[in-house]
């Protein structure tokens, strides 16, 4: 699995989101992702992560061993920098 493929899947599931994905072992199964989406507004962390997992569907069960997630609203992302 490629980081690029994961990025595309998340973007498809969460239209308009800013997504960055990094393969942090280089082995194609441990990834790190930053997802910034308007749709996270008013949602807790569990729901936000579930939305990202939902976009990844079966890939999350089979091909991705680990995905470290950072999830933010555009506001949180702005204030962070």
């Amino acid at each position, binding site marked *: 699995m490629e980081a690029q493929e994961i990025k595309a899947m998340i973007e498809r599931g969460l239209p308009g989101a800013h997504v960055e994905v990094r393969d942090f072992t280089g082995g194609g199964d441990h990834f790190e992702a930053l997802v910034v989406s308007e749709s996270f507004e008013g949602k807790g*962390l*569990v729901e936000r*992560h*579930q939305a990202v*997992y939902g976009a990844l569907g079966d890939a*999350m*069960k089979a091909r991705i061993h*680990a*995905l*470290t*997630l*950072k999830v933010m609203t555009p506001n949180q992302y702005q204030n962070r920098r």
Partner: protein
Amino acid sequence: MADAIERIRTTIASDRIVIFMKGNRNFPQCGFSAATIEVFEELGAPYTTVDVLADQEVRDAVKSYSNWPTIPQVFINGKFVGGCDIVREMHSSGELQTLVKAALSESAHQ
């Protein structure tokens, strides 16, 4: 599966903090499980662990119970709180300490 879900319900109802993990507290078998129990060790909070590697049925059932595809999974007061990322984030924001303190003081009153 129904039986495994029932066992999960019983476990998370009987103990305040329950962590479904790979391995056990002395020998975590995955870095994410290790990092998660590390947080609770640091808080000095008592927790129960369930080794999903020892029980494939529970491993599958807990994922469908919480609608969460990965292990570890943390339950406090019977409620799903999150996995490794969320627990660590809540720990650094201080939210976890508040939740744990409330959960433990409730049990002290019983």
